[in-house]
């Protein structure tokens, strides 16, 4: 009997214009979102490519001038042979994060968190606060990406096709007739939901694959795994909304009331709960004040500068280049700069650690409270899987800090020892090598939401199935 109703539903749907319109809309939005995400990330890749070019050119130019002196060391070494001048003033190294190939599907935090930093031998807070120029209006609004279509739009489409599945039959007066055929209501509604879910899930599978193709992701095994899990999250999310509609239909209320209830639940889970969870997380573990950080850094700088005042004066108040100093003479200035840096860093390091600790606790709260809303759970998983969640950027900053240590060590060692840079040294300057974290981190974050969404869907369906036993047919 299930089979008969199921096939009948498929036939009915194939001739239903609203149904086709909804599917068409989903396809259209997904394709547009994928292309839009692709455009955004192409811009970022283009930026990244240029960063590396510029840096190589500068480094080669420096090396060449030092090489000329190496070949013919007459007089004082040029200022570009000063490790202080190069490491603390001229040269910086762009540490660039590589995005995952699927990142365009979910822009996540990648429009807020920088994907590159210009590392110098100064303390890390001096370059970590830099950010990319962006219109804050666009950042506030957020990006139109595939994850948005799935989290915000998909539930509305699901509600639109399922809010009156049962109530409509009842209002049409055919429910009694059907029941008289010996069909249980559970079989009837299950067949109806199954027909819709089957078509929609097949379409979603096609759309997820199509989006991956559109954003130009290569189908390597890790990408396929990511994509499979991404799809699993979406299926779990869709199943949740279908199950909810299934349950609301089981309440035997009028169609219109079903619609109102489902619209309100959507609002609750997609708009209200996330904004409340956000307040909870940021109230429990607020970030330390950046305003206070600013004034404290200043206090420390001023204190340190007072000690170094006489030295600074000899270099025309931070203009050693105007003093016409050679490499050797310049390093005297940079030793003072290092001393100031060290004093400032002493103040900044504990505050930065506090930022990090609070952020970690905040994300911990979110990891727990994500289960208060399927939309949050889906968002966290969809971001994590394509590497655009905060955890990915925290990992990147960690790698940058480690690299910063190497870079700094290279220059400060030479500054303190008073060694000048040789051409060979320029080849030995450390370079940043981004290591994309393995899939385990992302998968760990995705399994929770996937299991949660599926369990929620099953529980809601089971509850609904019980209620259908007592559903009044007239």
């Amino acid at each position, binding site marked *: 009997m299930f089979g008969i109703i199921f096939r009948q539903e498929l036939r009915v749907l194939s001739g239903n214009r609203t149904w086709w319109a909804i599917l068409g809309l989903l396809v259209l*939005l997904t394709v547009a979102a994928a292309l839009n995400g692709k*455009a*955004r990330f192409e*811009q970022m890749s283009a930026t990244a490519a*240029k960063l590396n070019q510029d840096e190589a050119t500068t480094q080669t130019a420096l090396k060449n001038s030092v090489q000329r002196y190496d070949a013919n060391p007459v007089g004082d070494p040029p200022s570009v042979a000063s490790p202080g001048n190069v490491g603390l003033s001229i040269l910086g190294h762009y540490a660039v994060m590589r995005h995952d190939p699927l990142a365009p599907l979910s822009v*996540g*935090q990648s429009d*807020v*968190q920088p994907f590159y930093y210009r590392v110098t031998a100064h303390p890390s807070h001096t370059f970590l606060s830099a*950010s*990319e*120029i962006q*219109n*804050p*209006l*666009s*950042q*506030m*609004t*957020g990006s*139109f990406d595939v994850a948005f279509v799935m989290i*915000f*739009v998909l539930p*509305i489409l699901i509600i639109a096709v399922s809010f009156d599945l049962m109530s409509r039959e009842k209002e049409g007066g055919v429910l009694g007739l059907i029941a008289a055929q010996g069909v249980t209501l559970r079989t009837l509604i299950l067949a109806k939901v199954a027909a819709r879910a089957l078509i929609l899930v097949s379409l979603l599978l096609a759309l997820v694959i199509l989006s991956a193709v559109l954003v130009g992701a290569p189908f390597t095994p890790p990408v396929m795994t990511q994509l499979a899990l991404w799809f699993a999250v979406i299926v779990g999310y869709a199943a949740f909304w279908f199950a909810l509609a299934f349950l609301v239909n089981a309440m035997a209320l009028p*169609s*219109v*009331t079903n*619609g*109102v209830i489902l*619209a*309100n639940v959507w*609002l609750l889970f997609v*708009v209200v709960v*996330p*904004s409340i969870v*956000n*307040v909870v*997380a*940021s109230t429990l573990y607020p970030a330390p*004040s*950046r*305003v206070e950080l*600013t*004034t404290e850094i*200043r*206090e420390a700088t*001023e204190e340190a*500068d007072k000690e170094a*005042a006489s030295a*600074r004066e000899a270099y*025309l*108040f*931070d203009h050693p280049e105007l003093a016409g100093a050679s490499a050797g003479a310049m390093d005297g200035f940079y030793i003072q700069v290092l001393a100031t840096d060290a004093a400032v860093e002493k103040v900044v390091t504990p505050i930065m650690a506090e*930022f990090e600790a609070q952020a970690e606790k*905040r*994300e911990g709260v*979110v990891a727990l409270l994500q289960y208060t809303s399927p939309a*949050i759970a889906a*968002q*966290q998983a969809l971001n994590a899987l394509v590497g655009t969640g905060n955890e990915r950027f925290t990992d990147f900053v960690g790698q940058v800090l480690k690299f910063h240590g190497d870079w700094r060590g290279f220059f400060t060692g030479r500054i303190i020892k008073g060694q000048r840079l040789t051409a060979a040294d320029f080849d030995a300057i450390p370079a940043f090598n981004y290591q994309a974290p393995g899939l385990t981190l992302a998968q760990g974050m995705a399994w929770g939401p996937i299991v949660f969404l599926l369990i929620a869907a099953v529980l809601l369906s089971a509850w609904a199935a019980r209620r259908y036993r007592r559903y009044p047919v007239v």
Partner: protein
Amino acid sequence: MLASIAKKELVSALRDGRVMWSAAIFALMLVAALASAAQRYADISKEREAAQSIVNTQWQNQGEKNPHAAAHYGVYAFKPVTPLSFFDTGVSGFTGVSIWLEAHKQNFAEGEPARDATAIARFGELTGAFTLQMLLPLLVILLGFAAFAGEREQGTLRQVLAMGVSPVKLLFGKALGAAGAAGLFVVPVFLLGLIGLTLAPGGSAFIGHALVLVGVYTVYAAIFLFLTLAVSAAADSSRSALVIMVAFWAVSSVALPKVAADAARLVYATPTTVEFQKAIAADMENGIGGKTLDALVAERKEQTLRLYKTDAIEKLPINFQGIVLGLQEQVSNAVFDKHFGLLNGAFDKQKGVFEALTVLSPRLAVQMASMELAETSLGTHIGFAGQAETFRRSMIDTMNKAMTMNSTGANPDYRAGPELWAKVGAFTYTHQPLSKLLAGLGPSFMAMLLWLAASIVAGVLAARKLKALAS
């Protein structure tokens, strides 16, 4: 007649559990949002004021120094907050809160709060503006979707029309009733908000802004009310009226702003930070008016030597180094003006895309107007940065002049002290007067009024064609 229709509508709304629950939750959220705004305003305004005063004291007490050393030390400008900026946080999560004002550089504001937030913040912050923009329309839809279609389904519409009630009167009566029901919940919250605002320190200066905001959100609700009534009158069932209105709300309020953001970004590209800085560096090399800095310095050197009738810089009674620094600022200021001008111009064009799309989304129009009135728009931020930059330039100029005049060959160990630091004064942000804010709101207000007019016309047309029976 109008009154009795309105009364009937109000009573039936009050008896509808669905509506009452939704309205109560909505009012509760609005109160929570306003309370949290008051709390945050109290905390953050205190913090910013304290920071600004610490920085000002640091500047004043920096001891005796060469003026150029002081210029490098500089000061910070902290963006002040207003009570309304927590009613609608606008773009303030994504703009920096302080700017370092130092020699040679026009810096960007730093410390964007969004970087310290979790990804959930991207769903939207719980503010009064967010609650009103997202939830108020839905409440209005709930109140109105069954107004005509529901009565038609119950068969009462036939009776009412048979009594000779004009359908247009019916429309306005129902609108009045629904507005009354919504008002029962919203008006007390608005009053509460206004009282809170007068009590907040410095809040009374923004009562005018708040009243305009009340007007903006009232018009917003009215737009949705008349649209809903129009759809309810024209739709074949209350079910399809509900679906159509929820779909319209979702597309225009949730999806369209994002489309606007991405379209703006794709149509009018802004430079990356690196490109921006490279372009500035290149223009610094090129100089201004076809003259490089070196050429300008050489020219000025010659003039100065001629003026003082001497042949060497060392013999000048003034410090030529100070003049060079001044020329440097002159070049860099012109270059900054050009590039920040280009960037802000691009932002302005991007804003134009948002404004153009207000034709498709009443929420977008309200959002733009609301941010502007709460002084949390991008324009306000650029205005703050501009005032800070003006202050920076005058500060650096004061330092350079002091150096030129005092740090001379006769007095090579010249040190400036508190008298010079005091000359610079303290940075204070001047708020735009309300009249000026309103003038900038033309496009948004126009869009809102067009929407209102169109929705009323749609309501009247649909009411005139009202069918008593379902076809």
